[in-house]
């Protein structure tokens, strides 16, 4: 066997090992990230009394709604939030944050999530 060929074979084998090792390390890192994320969620839950992160994400909810529906729901819920939720005092939403919510119905979806929580309590 010529040396170039031997070289190529070892290069190939090293490659498989190296690539699999790095991908395995990446997989472990992601698991670590998820663990940290879960721990932060648990801490937030312990602190706030409910789990904000567990709610289906905006994106997922949006899939089932048209923009108009989202806007309508969002605006309605923003009123609900303004009246009831802030009394509940769970979150301190005010000033620019509150107006940002009402600005766009799409962001009102976020409000609807909180609503779900409140009612679920």
């Amino acid at each position, binding site marked *: 066997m010529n040396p170039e060929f031997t070289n190529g074979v070892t290069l190939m084998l090293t490659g498989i090992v190296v690539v699999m090792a790095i*991908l395995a390390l990446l*997989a472990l890192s*992601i698991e670590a990230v998820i663990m940290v994320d879960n721990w932060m969620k648990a801490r937030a839950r312990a602190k706030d009394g409910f789990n904000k992160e567990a709610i289906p994400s905006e994106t997922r909810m949006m899939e089932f709604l048209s923009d108009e529906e989202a806007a309508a729901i969002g605006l309605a819920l923003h009123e609900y939030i303004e009246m009831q939720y802030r009394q509940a005092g769970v979150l301190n939403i005010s000033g620019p944050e509150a107006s940002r919510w009402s600005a766009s119905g799409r962001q009102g979806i976020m409000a609807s999530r909180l609503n779900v929580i409140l009612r679920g309590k």
Partner: protein
Amino acid sequence: MLENFLDNFVKVFSSTGFSAITAPNLLMLAVGCAFIYMAIVKEYEPYELLPIGLGAILINLPLHQMGNFFPVLELNEAGQVVKGFTQNAGLLGLAKEYGLFTYNILPPLIFLGLGAITDFSPLIANPKMLLLGGAAQVGVFVAFFGSMLMGFDLNDSAAISIIGGADGPTTIYINAILAPERLGITAVTAYSYMGLVAIIQPPIIRLLTSKKERMMKMEQLRPVSKRTKILFPIVIMIISILFIPMSAPLISMFMIGNVFRESGVVDRLSRTSANELLNIVTIFLMLCIGITLEGNAVCNWETIKILSLGLVAFAAGTAGGILFAKVMNLFTKNKVNPIIGAAGVSAVPMAARVAQEIAHHEDPENHILMHAMGPNVAGVIGSAIVAGYFLSILAK
């Protein structure tokens, strides 16, 4: 005066393309038309094959300068400049030279856009899918071995074998460095087989799996938080580049695009990366690939060899993914349907759809598309790392 007139006619007709056109040009004109047909009528990878076909037609019409590039400098052996700039360069020749051969910036730009349209959730929800994406890279290494057997040297073998990664921009990136003279053929081979993945993969999947395996259902993926989605690309970027610095051009732009997307605070950058910038770069990259297909350069036996090595690479990658999934099932609790291993070759998202269709055909209640997307995008990361590995070892 009449003499002048006739002289002029002769001058015009001797400057037509008819005097210079060759049989390989004619063949490649036909191939260009075939690509356009496949793109428009069959809708096989139209965003790649249509502009590639148009570029191929253009470059096989002789005597124009659209594909030309003359170096900024021409030096004599004393290091003295013999010639400076020249007007005699064409738009696509410039794009090819600066975008690929000299600076190789078009593939990373494509990856920025791909990052901005890729949803890594299915992979984050099940990180071990990364291993399936890695296992499918075995196709690359098998093709590498095959290339060496066929007499290609190390650089050429690496450049050819990356076809098995089933990622256009990765293939183009590494070929522009290691084997620029063969860039067109390898890129076109990769895109063609990606277009044909629904024909190449099913028999291999059926051969390597039992009906019972193909009918396996997988449980719902766990939900992925926004925080994880933002951290994922950053972590992948840091670790991959720390280990394989040469993977930076592809991995970093891919992951930066994905942070733009997932952060939710730079919507304008994310949209522009995913749309206008990606579209503009696609136009030029694909036309450039097209103009590398000049008949007299590509009509030779090597092209046939590359076409067969590419097919071997796709088949071996598919097999590698499936077999690794079966091995993984021996050691893990949450078994995976081995079909999704085949999606590890990338060819995003066609290979994942192939997996879905086969599983769905065996059991109409079985939907594994989202599960198959995990190894599918993992394969992109895997191939970019393989490319970085080759470049660390081989590039000058």
